[in-house]
């Protein structure tokens, strides 16, 4: 029991005769039960459904159909189109967030007046509800009375009605909302870079690009990779902003397709199968990132 603190003989728990193990269980078991009931059980249950033709909206017998749902989904070019749309969205959105978030962090890492206030203001978007952000940007994008076109002098540019533009409009909104998250993690990383390294580089007359690529970036990269992992996972699952902003087929992310299968068409079995395909993809992408993260930490 070396790792665990033992009870003080005069404590109430000790007086009741509770051991360290009992107290540990009192804290852990409710959480584990909660996770089992609300996470693990539905996960396993839905895996079972994914092999059936179950439809929640009808009182019909459920039939085991093996891998038919998976086969049907993976052979459907429209589902692959949903994945392609999602991939494009993830790339644009996460790239934008990383560049803008890290750029903002570099600016805020300097000595500037009202730095605390500016940082707080910049973090406001990510504190808002996604539904509110979606509705707010829908107004901003409106070609007739939205201020965005007016300010940028874009005339009547139909951001959300134009099939080619709509996905980028959704990605811009997501970048606006989540770049501050990357900024926050980057700031934490930047503030942890030892100053003496910069001083040594200055003595060696290293240029600012050299300092950035050989000191700043390598030392901040583990935190940047963590931001990348979180944002990729979140962007892959994006539903709310895209659902509120546009119903264009070109913005139908895989999560929206999943929602339609599950709650509009009530193809419950098929939607469970799609959810598992998405889960496997997210896990695979995350694993690749984690591998890079471990390498970055080792350096």
């Amino acid at each position, binding site marked *: 029991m070396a790792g665990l603190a033992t009870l003080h003989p005069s404590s109430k728990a000790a007086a009741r005769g509770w051991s360290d193990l009992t107290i540990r269980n009192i804290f852990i078991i409710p959480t584990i039960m909660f996770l089992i009931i609300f996470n693990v059980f539905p996960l396993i249950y839905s895996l079972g459904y994914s092999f059936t033709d179950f439809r929640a*909206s009808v009182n019909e017998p459920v039939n085991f159909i093996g891998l038919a749902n998976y086969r049907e989904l993976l052979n459907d070019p429209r589902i692959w189109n949903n994945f392609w749309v999602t991939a494009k969205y993830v790339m644009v959105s996460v790239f934008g967030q990383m560049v803008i978030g890290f750029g903002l962090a570099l600016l805020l890492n300097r000595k500037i007046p009202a730095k605390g206030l500016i940082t707080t203001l910049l973090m406001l978007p990510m504190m808002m509800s996604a539904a509110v952000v979606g509705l707010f940007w829908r107004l901003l994008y409106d070609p*007739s009375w939205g201020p965005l076109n007016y300010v940028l002098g874009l005339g009547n540019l139909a951001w959300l*009605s134009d099939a080619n533009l709509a996905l980028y409009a959704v990605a811009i909104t997501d970048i606006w909302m989540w770049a501050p998250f990357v900024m926050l993690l980057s700031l934490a990383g930047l503030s942890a870079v030892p100053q003496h390294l910069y001083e040594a580089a200055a003595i060696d007359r290293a240029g600012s690009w050299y300092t950035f690529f050989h000191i700043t970036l390598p030392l901040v990269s583990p935190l940047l990779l963590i931001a990348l992992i979180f944002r990729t996972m979140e962007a892959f699952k994006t539903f709310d902003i895209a659902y509120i902003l546009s*119903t*264009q*087929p070109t913005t139908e992310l895989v999560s929206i397709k999943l929602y339609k299968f599950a*709650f509009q*068409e*009530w193809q419950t079995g098929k939607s469970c199968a799609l959810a598992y395909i998405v889960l496997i993809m997210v896990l695979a992408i995350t694993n690749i990132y984690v591998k890079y993260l471990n390498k970055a930490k080792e350096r």
Partner: protein
Amino acid sequence: MLRRTFLSLTLGTAMALSGAFHAAAQAEELTIFWAEWDPANYLQELANLYTAETGVTITVQTTPWPDFQTKAFAEFNAKGEAFDMVVGDSQWVGAGSTGGHYVDLTDFYAKHKVLDSMAPATVKAYAEYPGNSGKYWSIPTEGDAAGWAYRKDWFEDPMEMEAFKAKYGYDLAVPKDYKQLRDIAEFFYRPDEKKYGIAIYTDNSYDAMLMGIEGAIFSYGGELGDYSTYKVDGILNTPKNAEAVEMYKQLYGFTPPNWGKTFFQEDNQAITENLAAMSLNFFAFFPALANKASNPNADVTGYFANPAGPDGKQHAALGGQGISIVSYSKKQEESMKFLEWFIKDETQKKWAELGGYTCNKAVLESEAFRKATPYNEAFYQTMFMVKDFWAVPEYAELLTQMNNQIYPYIISGEGGSAQAVLDTIAKEWTETFKKYGRGG
């Protein structure tokens, strides 16, 4: 011992009484679920009259239209008791009945002679499933269909009339057919003046844009398929239906800018904000156009029924809902009593006066109803020529498949041709029916 017995008896009586009071209190409250729109407010007003008569409190609970179907079916699937009755969409009858969510009202229909009092087309669309089975699951409540509003002042302007006649060779008036509708839309399409020809539905969620497409298809003499055999190929993808879809695409070309995702709000705005000469909408949204407070052009707004197709056939897409008793409700008896009251001629008359679109034959045909508002005459004409979408339990899949093909074609010309688009939909619908074992 005596004291203990007395105490037990007192407690038992108190518990029994409280249980009885609780049950009585429960029975005196009914909840009706509907979408968030004006007719739901009218229904609440009507229900207040029932409360005054019987003491039974009725709450009309609402949710925005985009969530209506999802919320209702989520509650049904959970076998929840949150709603005693639901004013469900016409397409829901199949899913509601076969899913066991709706109470069978066939005996109620026979006992109260509902077929004698309601317009036949509405009973068929809102209540009967399967088609021609004689089994009924709801009471027609809010009759609705797609109709048109137009700017009378633009149409009656002598200069416009003269210019129109010179260009098209006939008088500018309410369009008799789709060709005239297109001509008028083209005539008033003047982007330089910020005036546009027509406002149509283009929202690809649920059945919004498809209501407009269906109206064209039905008037062109087409059908969406054979509702009894589930045959689609050769019925949906006919050259006539392709012409109808092509016509809708042409009409889209005369809409205001950024008209790629529009539904009832935008179509009413097209009239209130002087954007378009004509606007497609459900009749349920016309009260807002007839009201000067919400439409500064109310006095110069006219209404007409969906025009005919090239062969003179005239039909319209059906909207509207029927009220059903939810099978998981514990207050089915009390709900039946409310429906009994609701179908009475005098209640239906009151329903129409409040703004509800009654489906009661006697009220619909009365002069008083037809002259009550500027749009009631067009509504009356429309309700005798309505046709509806599939009411099968998998209707939502069919809607998605049709939206996926039609929307990109109308908005950006993707999919090749109207014929190719309809061929794809016919193929997908046939596969869907096959998947659910329909049509042999």
